[in-house]
């Protein structure tokens, strides 16, 4: 079996699991970290799908800037959802 396909399956499963964790987690800071892990898995997927241009913009935006923007916003509200 093709190694690329195996890696695609592995990293998309990791992405799926962390998406689920991010959606269900009530502690917002943890949810943001889960979301960043999911983005890292997606970055690998994009690289495996031969889209290095997208990887280069996806990593700084989805792992750096986007969680940072969310953390700044969470810092201005409550840390736990629904209270």
């Amino acid at each position, binding site marked *: 079996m093709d190694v690329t396909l195996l890696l695609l399956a592995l990293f998309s499963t990791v992405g*799926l699991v962390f998406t689920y964790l991010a959606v269900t987690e009530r502690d917002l800071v943890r949810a943001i970290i889960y979301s960043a892990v999911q983005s890292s898995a997606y970055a690998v997927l994009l690289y495996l799908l031969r889209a290095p241009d997208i*990887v*280069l*913009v996806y990593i700084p935006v989805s792992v*750096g*800037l986007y969680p*940072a*923007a969310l953390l700044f916003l969470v810092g*201005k509200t409550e840390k736990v959802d629904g209270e």
Partner: protein
Amino acid sequence: MRRVIVAVSIAASVALLAYTTTVAGALGYLGLETRTLARMFLALTYNPDLRELTAMSPEAVTAIVWDFRGVDTLYETVVFYMAIIAALAIYRGVSRVSGGGGVGLSLIVRVVTKLLIPMNIAIAVSIAVHGHLTPGGGFQAGATLAVISVLLAVVYSVNSFSRVGVDISKAVALRSAGLIAIAIVVFTPLIYSALTGAQAYLMQSYVKVDSGFYFPVDVFGQLISGTLIWLNTAEFLAVSFGFFIVFMLLSLREEIVKQSLLGEGRGS
């Protein structure tokens, strides 16, 4: 019970999506055939034999983004420009980025970050100026450089912006410089056309069938791909300092923002 339903529905959606995109061929059989459009771009992206059609850049994505569909990218840049203007309008009157007595994170984190920042700058510049040769380009490089603004705010506290000499007005000036540079590159063919009477098109990078105008394609034997290197570098400035502005504003303490907004309301 609820968890079981969630797990089953997720598994079913994944299986369905995997089936439609692979076996059922909803996206075409991936990797087995190259579509005509893709073949056309691959043949034209760097092809000195077809001078009227090529973009003269071996990096097909940048060639598409800034040449084949350059006007699209121009409008994307305008959208980003408007978004930053909106942020600046909301935070109007806030000119100094400082506040709180924060000193940032521990010494270990600060030292590691100090080592990372020069690497980050080097990689960002390299992504920008090699954008026409290797994967990357202005937006990618700008996003990479913008990570520094987050590192400064989180690791060294908000006060570090003024310590390293970056403030909002400087960031706005640098971003505007990038946008003006893009405008100059875009309008140069039209100015050339107005001055000489020769045919030239907006955003033209290389010779066309009825126009001999072109930007230099190489300098001392190094490929610079016409307008692509200039547009990438200018976009790099515009995007990175656009993000810098947003993160400087976001990292401000609410009390300080409210103070300056209320100050405006009182007419002072």
